[in-house]
Every structure is written in structure tokens, then in C-alpha cells.
């Protein structure tokens, strides 16, 4: 019985995936409860607060589920495309990274449950959590750095043994993703290590609030690309194999990832458009850069539909849209990522609206924004990850993915899509009517305008329950996967349509790309941050207001 990837590698990957899915389940319970509270269906029992749940939901979904799944998935692909076995160094770093992140997650969760960190996953100062919460975050980040080092070690080892050859596409993309992660986490690491931890321990009395926000959002925007790039890996490298096709353009796929590496970070101000302390000039400059980072997604959209069409036509389907029928709609390995792609269309458009000055004024901090990111991270990213899990778990555990699991998966992801449609749709409309995000159940003292938002809150509760039911189906599927028959499940990796020589080598000159990324960051951030440091506003003392 052939093992898709080395057994020891499989263990590393599986541990990450299961940890991620467990975080998702707990975060999902929180999310459902939040929706039901706001929909007026339940009241929370004493001992747990709405904002505690919200903090847990954000941290578990946006930081834990995502990071662990991404690292597990990328280790699996790296192993597969570099010969089926990670080096001992790579795997060792992967394990140390996992344990640091897991310990950090545990400490953070305890702090949140103990109501010592009810600061939401953005932990804006001067709300002051327990220092152990910030230490927990630091552990997760440092752990991820070690995981990244493990992945880069594997890539470097492959390149040494294949001098002169272009790297496998999955490996290239994984390195680009972790490269972005290192660049991005620099900002949050600086603010957590040099501002939040000393301040929350009481070693310094005051914190520069604008600086902490700016450093956080320096990290917060590329964070979403850290989530998106592994999804693009699935769409570019894995989906074509599943549909019986090939990668449309290896070169442009690499270019898209280089552009993401360059333009994901110098754009954080579009999350801070409504703030003082940053001049209109710098806000607008970063909005221009934000619009440039749309380009790699446009490239990706074209590549995907081109892949679908060329594959369909190669199979003999004719007519303008006949190739559509060639797609394996009854295969959850395709259906789930495809649903993710569809969700990303309004998701991406919403993102551009959010980054546009005048429209931002209308939607900032309303629940429209929550609707936006439930389309992007909670659908495009999450549903693609679900689609991956259904074949990845059997593949690495030496079992055969059965039609029964496939059918369960189709039901699960379809329920997820329905839940999101209802919930996110309601969030978008309610947000346009002014409903704020991050707010517990209230009628604002019977206010008429607020009353308009009530029916949408009910819809959000319904959507949240549907999503939770979808998670139950996923839990059932996971349990069934333990008892699948032993056998082989394919780890689908597509070949390129064009020969390797068609991809220009300069795409792999990491020194150039990282250097350019640094230049762009300096251009976008150096002067505004220097201004915050040179003319600092009076610092703020900490507040524990929960």
C-alpha cells in the first residue's frame, strides 16, 4: 500500500489540521451564540459575557484555525512536491513551531475564559489585557516563525539538490506565503514585545495608542493575504488536477504571488481611514497601493476561468459555456473551492468599497465589514480548507476517501454556503443602514432607526445556526474518516500546461522581491511612523472596562 507522503510528515500535518478544526468548532459555537444573543433568541448564562465570546470567536477563527490549517496544508504540499519526504530539520522545526503555537493558544484561551483578555482579537490599546494574553500571542507568532523556517529549510534543500531547475509551483508559493508572513508579523511583534507586554506588566505607565494601532494594521492587512495565498495555492495547483486539467500559466501564477508579496503590506492605512494622527496624503497613498494589490487577484480570476474553459474544451465540450458542464460538480474537492471562488467575487468587491475613502465613511465599523470578512475569510478561505480536508486527511492517514465522505462533504459545504448567504447578506444590508459591528444585543432604548436593524439580526441568528449545523456535519465526517478503509487517496497536484522553460527565472529571485517589498514599506510607512514617534500624542494609561 503506497503512502502518499511520508508517514512522519503525515503525523505533523494531521496534528495541525485537527488542531485547526477543533479551534474552528469551538469558535463556531461562540459565533452561533453571538448571533442568537443579538437576534434576541437567548440570553447568555451568568459567567460568560458577549464580548468574551466575541474575543474567543475572533482569536480562534482568525488566528488559530487559519494559521494551524495553513501551516499543516503547506507542509503537506511541500513534502509531496519535493519528493514525498521532509528533511529531519524541516520536520523538527515544524514540531517545535507547532508546540510553541499550541502552548500560546492554550494560554490565550485560558486568559480569555478567565475574562482577563476581553479585548477582541484586535486588542486595541488602551484596553489592557493580562500580560499573559500578549505573551500567548507572541508565542503563537514565534512558533509560526519556526514553522516557516522548517518550510524554507525544505525548499532550500530541494533547490540544492536540483540546481538550475525551477522550483515546484506549490513550493514556490509556500515560500512566498511564509515570506509575506515574516514581513507582516514584524509589525505585530514589535508592538506586542515593545509596547503591550511592558505596558501590561506595569513596567511602563503609558502606551502610544496611534503607534500601536498603526503597527497592528501594518500586520492586519497582510494577515488576510497570509490566509488567501494558501487558498490560491489550492485553486492554482490542486483544483486543475481535480478537474482533469493543467495549470494555465505557471509563470503568471508565480507573478501573482510575487505581487502579493510586494503589495500586501504597505496598505494598512485603509483600515485606519477614519482615524486622526495620519494625514490625508498618506492615507491616499496607501489606498493607491491597496488598489494595486487587487491586480494579482484579477490575474488569479482569469487563470481559474481559463483553466476551467481550456480543460472543458480539451474534453470536447463545445459552445460558449459548454465547458461548464465538464466541471466535476459532484466532487466536493472541486465544489468547495469553487464556492469559495464565487464568494470571493462579492467579497473582493466589498473590499474595494471598504478601501474607498468616501464609501468607507459609510461602512467603517458597521456590521457591513463583518459581512465582508465572512465572505472572504469565512467562505473563500474556510470553505476551500474544508474542501481540502476531505481528501487531505485520508491521503495522509493512508485511507481511501469514499463516496460516502464525498456526499457528506457536499452537504456540509452546501449548508455552509447557505448559512453564509443568509448571515452575510443580512450583515451587509444592516451595515449599510448603520448597524454597528462588535456590539451586543441592544435596542438603543427603543430607537426607531435601530429597530430597522432587528429583522436582520434575526436573519444573522438563523444563518449562524445553519453554519453550526454545517459544523456538526463536518464533525460527523471527521469521525467517519477515522474508520475509512485503508487504501490510497490521491494528493492532487497539477502539471503545468506550458513547459518549465516558459517560466522566467527572475521570478524566483527572492532577494529582489523581499528588497522591493521593504522599499515599498519604507515608502508607505516611514514618514507617517516617524511623525508618530517624533510628535507623539500624550500616551494612554491602561483601562480594564469589562
Amino acid at each position, binding site marked *: 500500500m503506497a503512502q502518499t507522503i511520508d508517514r512522519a510528515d503525515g503525523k505533523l500535518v494531521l496534528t495541525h489540521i485537527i488542531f485547526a478544526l477543533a479551534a474552528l468548532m469551538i469558535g463556531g459555537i461562540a459565533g452561533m451564540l453571538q448571533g442568537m444573543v443579538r437576534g434576541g433568541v437567548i440570553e447568555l448564562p451568568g459567567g460568560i459575557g458577549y464580548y468574551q465570546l466575541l474575543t474567543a470567536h475572533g482569536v480562534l477563527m482568525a488566528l488559530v484555525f487559519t494559521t494551524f490549517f495553513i501551516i499543516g496544508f503547506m507542509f503537506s504540499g511541500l513534502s509531496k512536491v519535493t519528493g514525498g519526504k521532509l528533511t529531519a530539520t524541516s520536520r523538527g522545526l515544524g514540531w517545535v513551531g507547532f508546540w510553541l503555537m499550541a502552548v500560546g493558544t492554550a494560554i490565550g484561551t485560558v486568559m480569555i475564559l478567565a475574562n482577563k483578555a476581553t479585548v477582541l482579537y484586535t486588542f486595541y490599546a488602551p*484596553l489592557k489585557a493580562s500580560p499573559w494574553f500578549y505573551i500567548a500571542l507572541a508565542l503563537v507568532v514565534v512558533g509560526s516563525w519556526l514553522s516557516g523556517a522548517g518550510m524554507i529549510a525544505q525548499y532550500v534543500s530541494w533547490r540544492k539538490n536540483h540546481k538550475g531547475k525551477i522550483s515546484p509551483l506549490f513550493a514556490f508559493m509556500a515560500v512566498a506565503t511564509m515570506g509575506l508572513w515574516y514581513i507582516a508579523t514584524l509589525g505585530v511583534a514589535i508592538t506586542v514585545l515593545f509596547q503591550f507586554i511592558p505596558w501590561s506588566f506595569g513596567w511602563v505607565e503609558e502606551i*502610544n495608542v496611534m503607534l500601536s494601532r498603526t503597527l497592528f494594521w501594518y500586520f492586519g492587512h497582510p494577515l488576510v493575504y497570509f490566509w488567501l495565498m494558501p487558498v490560491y495555492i489550492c485553486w492554482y495547483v490542486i483544483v486543475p488536477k481535480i478537474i482533469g486539467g493543467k495549470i494555465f500559466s505557471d509563470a503568471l501564477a508565480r507573478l501573482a504571488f510575487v505581487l502579493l508579496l510586494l503589495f500586501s503590506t504597505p496598505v494598512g492605512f485603509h483600515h485606519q481611514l477614519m482615524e*486622526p*494622527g495620519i494625514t490625508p496624503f498618506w*492615507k491616499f497613498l496607501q*489606498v493607491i497601493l491597496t488598489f494595486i494589490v487587487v*491586480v494579482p487577484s484579477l490575474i488569479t480570476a482569469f487563470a481559474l476561468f481559463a483553466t476551467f474553459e481550456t480543460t472543458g474544451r480539451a474534453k470536447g465540450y463545445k459552445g460558449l459555456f459548454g465547458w461548464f458542464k465538464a466541471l466535476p460538480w459532484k466532487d466536493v474537492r472541486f465544489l468547495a473551492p469553487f464556492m469559495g471562488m464565487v464568494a470571493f467575487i462579492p467579497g473582493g468587491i466589498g473590499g474595494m468599497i471598504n478601501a474607498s475613502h468616501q464609501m468607507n465613511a459609510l461602512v467603517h*465599523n458597521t456590521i457591513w465589514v463583518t459581512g465582508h470578512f465572512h465572505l472572504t475569510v469565512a467562505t473563500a478561505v474556510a470553505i476551500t480548507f474544508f474542501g481540502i480536508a476531505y481528501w487531505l486527511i485520508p491521503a495522509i492517514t493512508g485511507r481511501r476517501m469514499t463516496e460516502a465522505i464525498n456526499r457528506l462533504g457536499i452537504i456540509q459545504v452546501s449548508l455552509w454556503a447557505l448559512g453564509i448567504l443568509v448571515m452575510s447578506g443580512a450583515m451587509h444590508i444592516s451595515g449599510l443602514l448603520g448597524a454597528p459591528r462588535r456590539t451586543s444585543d441592544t435596542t438603543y432604548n427603543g430607537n426607531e*432607526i435601530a429597530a430597522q436593524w432587528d429583522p436582520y439580526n434575526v436573519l444573522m441568528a438563523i444563518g449562524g445556526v445553519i453554519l453550526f449545523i454545517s459544523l456538526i456535519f463536518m464533525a460527523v465526517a471527521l469521525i467517519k474518516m477515522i474508520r475509512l478503509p485503508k487504501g490510497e487517496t490521491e494528493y492532487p497536484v497539477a502539471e503545468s500546461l506550458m513547459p518549465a522553460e516558459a517560466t522566467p527565472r527572475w521570478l524566483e529571485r527572492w532577494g529582489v522581491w523581499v528588497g522591493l517589498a521593504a522599499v515599498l514599506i519604507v515608502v508607505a510607512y516611514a514618514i507617517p511612523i516617524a511623525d508618530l514617534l517624533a510628535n507623539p500624542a500624550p500616551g494612554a494609561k491602561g*483601562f480594564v472596562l469589562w
Partner: protein
Amino acid sequence: MHIHRLEKIWIAFGLVMLAVFLTVLGIFAFSQGVQTPHSYAHQGVDPEKLSETPPFDQPGVYQIGENEYEAVIVTYAFGFNPGEITVPAGARIHFVVTSPDVVHGFEIAGTTVNLMSIPGEVNRVTYTFDKPGEYLILCNEYCGIGHQAMYTKLIVI
């Protein structure tokens, strides 16, 4: 690098659309005055000394012209000072906002008044209230356990 003809057209189309959006955005922001909220100079105030620092030592609505006002507002956990505001229809209000404690949002639902009130900083935005009615002012940034109870009214008569 070979790029398919259709892809070249698609990317060109995309770049043109992005350029058009940015141009519209930029013109409205820089020449039509529909700009993001901001302080005119980087103006810091000590959040612990607001009661001694003008204009925040006397929050309130002050007439500065014909149907033109400056509204000096302190957002705090969990309310607004001044509380209810009443102005005549057509009033052009310059909001000047800060916080003595944590970050708050200052949103007037149904309008484009939506800004972050950050301790240590002063934020400003201007809006003309043509339509009479009762507007809901609320905090839209999590600020603690009373966040959902942080609201007041702006009445335009």
C-alpha cells in the same frame, strides 16, 4: 513571459477601472472636500487633563456662523458629552472629538459622520444636516462592557 491575448485585455481593463476609481476617489477627497476625518495639524491632548484643556474643558455646541456650528465632543465609557444635541435644519456642524479613556467610535447612523475618537488625539469631520429628524449617535468601536449602551441623539428641527 507569454501572456494570452485575452488576459492582456482583462488586466488592461482591470487597471483602467482601478485608475478610474482612484481618480474619482482622489478628486472627491482632495478637491471636493469629501475627505477622511483628520486633525489639521498633529494635535495631541492629554487624555487625563481634558477638563483643563480647551476646547474640551467646555464640551458643547457653539455657533460660529450663520447656521454653522462647532460641536466639541468628549466620548467616554459609556456616553457622550454633550448628551443630546439639537440644531436647526441645514446646520453645518464641525465635530471636534476626543476621548479621555479608550478608543471609541463616533457614528451618526444614516450619515457619513463616522470617525474614531482616540485618547491623546483630536479628530474632526464636518457634515451638513439638511434633513430634519432624530439621528442616532452611537459608539461603533468596542470599548468595554457598556459599549452597546453608549449612544445619544442629534435632533434636527
